[in-house]
């Protein structure tokens, strides 16, 4: 990372294990190693994209950063301050600066509040007058492609994609420095996706916002991220600037991800690619490289010991022997 840049958020060795309790006494029988050593940093005004397979731990990383879940190991440093040990009460003032668009919009909206009220809640914290609040609320709704007239409707009266946009509007209502977007546009069609992506980009330029952008869609991540961290089974396997990652992916998993992007431009009749091999379980990840069971390049040394990052270029780190 450029030394001129000021780091807003830094995550080091982050781990989160969920206990699996079994039997009458609910003893802990095993652990789901949802996040198993994640490091990255986000500079002010920049975006980091987090991509990876379903269940690899992306949402858990987001929730741990916001301290909605306590990490089991590692440090979260925000604006130079270690926030890992902060209590929920001490976190409260920071919550305003760190907003999140949750992956599941319905369950994150209060069903008994109109969406207008949900959006205004954040504005109230800022101490705006009622008139200014409503003006701002209407503006936010319009920005995400919903009409201001929808402000007095309840979440269940919206379509899935409309609810998702309410979540985006709510996160943008507060003047924050970091917005974590967990699959913020997955339910949206391309046209509205484009509108939201452009909106997020504009706001970033104007307000110097930073984003942690979680998505399974590499095309979308490519648009919005300066750097991309590719996660596999709880840890980052490749870390690179977005353009480098697209032009020169090094980890075999990243290559699969890139080659499998369905696109209308591709040959329509081409077969969909799938990964061969067992889907590894976060309950007992294999020793050595976690991708070994599905990797076309696997060899004996991949199956033992921890595989560390190797630097293959400026700002380009890969956890694979074969990449160098």
């Amino acid at each position, binding site marked *: 990372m450029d030394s001129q840049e000021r780091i807003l958020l830094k995550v080091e060795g982050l781990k989160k294990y969920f206990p699996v309790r079994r039997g009458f006494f609910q003893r802990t029988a095993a652990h789901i190693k949802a996040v198993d050593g994640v490091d990255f940093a986000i500079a002010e005004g920049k975006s980091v994209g987090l991509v990876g397979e379903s269940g690899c731990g992306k949402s858990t990383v987001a929730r741990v950063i916001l301290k909605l879940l306590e990490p089991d190991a590692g440090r979260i440093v925000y604006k130079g301050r270690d926030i890992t040990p902060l209590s929920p009460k001490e976190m409260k003032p920071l919550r305003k600066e760190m907003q999140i668009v949750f992956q599941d919009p319905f369950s994150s909206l209060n069903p008994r509040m109109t969406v207008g009220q949900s959006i205004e809640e954040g504005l109230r914290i800022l101490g705006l007058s009622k008139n200014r609040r409503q003006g701002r609320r209407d503006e936010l709704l319009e920005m995400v492609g919903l*009409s201001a*007239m929808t402000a007095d409707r309840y979440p269940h009266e919206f379509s899935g994609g409309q609810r998702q946009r309410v979540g985006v509007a709510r996160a943008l209502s507060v003047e924050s420095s970091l917005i974590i977007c967990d*699959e913020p546009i997955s339910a949206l069609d*391309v046209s509205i996706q484009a509108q939201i992506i452009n909106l997020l980009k504009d706001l970033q330029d104007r307000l110097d916002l930073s984003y942690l952008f979680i998505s399974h869609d590499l*095309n979308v991540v490519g648009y919005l991220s300066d750097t991309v961290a590719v996660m596999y089974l709880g840890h980052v396997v490749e870390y690179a600037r977005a353009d480098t990652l697209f032009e020169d992916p090094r980890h075999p998993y990243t290559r699969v991800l890139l080659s499998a992007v*369905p696109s*209308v431009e591709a040959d329509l009749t081409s077969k969909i690619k*799938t990964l061969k091999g067992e889907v*590894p379980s976060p309950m*007992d990840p294999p020793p050595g490289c976690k991708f070994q069971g599905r990797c076309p390049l696997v060899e004996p040394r991949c199956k033992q010991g921890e595989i560390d990052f190797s630097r293959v270029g400026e700002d380009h780190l890969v956890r694979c022997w074969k990449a160098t």
Partner: protein
Amino acid sequence: MEEAYAPPHKDTLLLVEDLRVHFRGHDHVARAVDGVSFDVHTGETVCLVGESGCGKTVTALAILGLVPIPPGVIASGKIRLRDTNLLTLTEEGLQDIRGNQISMVFQEPLTALNPVFTIGDQIMEAIQVHEKVSENERRRRCIGLLTDVGIPSPEARLKDYPHQLSGGQRQRVMVAMALACHPALIIADEPTTALDVTVQAQILNLMKSIQHASAMSVLYITHDLGVVSTVADRVYVMYAGLIVEQGTRDQVFQHPRHPYTRGLLASLPSRSKRGKRLYSIPGSVPNPAFKPKGCPFHPRCSAAIAECAVDFPGMCDYGHGHLSRCPPVYSRERQE
């Protein structure tokens, strides 16, 4: 002109005709679905695509008798599954259809799954409703289904509650539940939005192989044109509660006729456009309570002419099952 698509089986499984679903608000009526017609043949994959809020989910809910009434009303239409008119069925009859004939993968799994039961209980319940089998057999099938949808350590995860799963895992549990009762038709409402490409491909392939084995039909509701272009036999493009274009996958993707379909294809993000501003169709979907007169797309349409603001557009026939609701483009292209 290319050949029309011949469905694997000629018989129509589902027929929807002039469906209108309206929601009454305190001072207006939202015409969420406003005259939708389509059909699905046995063994076929039909995709319903369109912008957020255009009425896709409400159409699906209407087929299953799940529109909340009130505030909803089925203002007109016919929905036939083989010889049964679904709109005249009692709740009991509908439940039977839902357990045995049609199953649905809901768009928001967290709200569709029951938070107080484990996912194993819920899948086994779906198996039980369809077919009485021993508890051991149910468990075995349940584990098989979870394996098919790519959930690691399925035996252990049976006992998880929905909130303990990741977003994409919940979505796949919904798919497993929908497959559990061997339906004749699956309505899958954005079934892979939370899934990365590799897992998505696994799910799409799974559905395809079941379709080949059992002639199951799939009605795919999605905004993802990449998915549509890989799975669809036929495509219906929906805008503001209406079908605006329909045809085979190749007709719609290679020779889109409606300006809206063309706009959708133009706004696809792709690697070649990285870093540049994305094209998006200007404006947004009209509020279903205040639709413009004439063609509902005309305020956003670059090809609009004066008549578009006045006349409601009829379907224009391009032959071989390819129809588009845009008379101006039709007459212009006929002249060329």
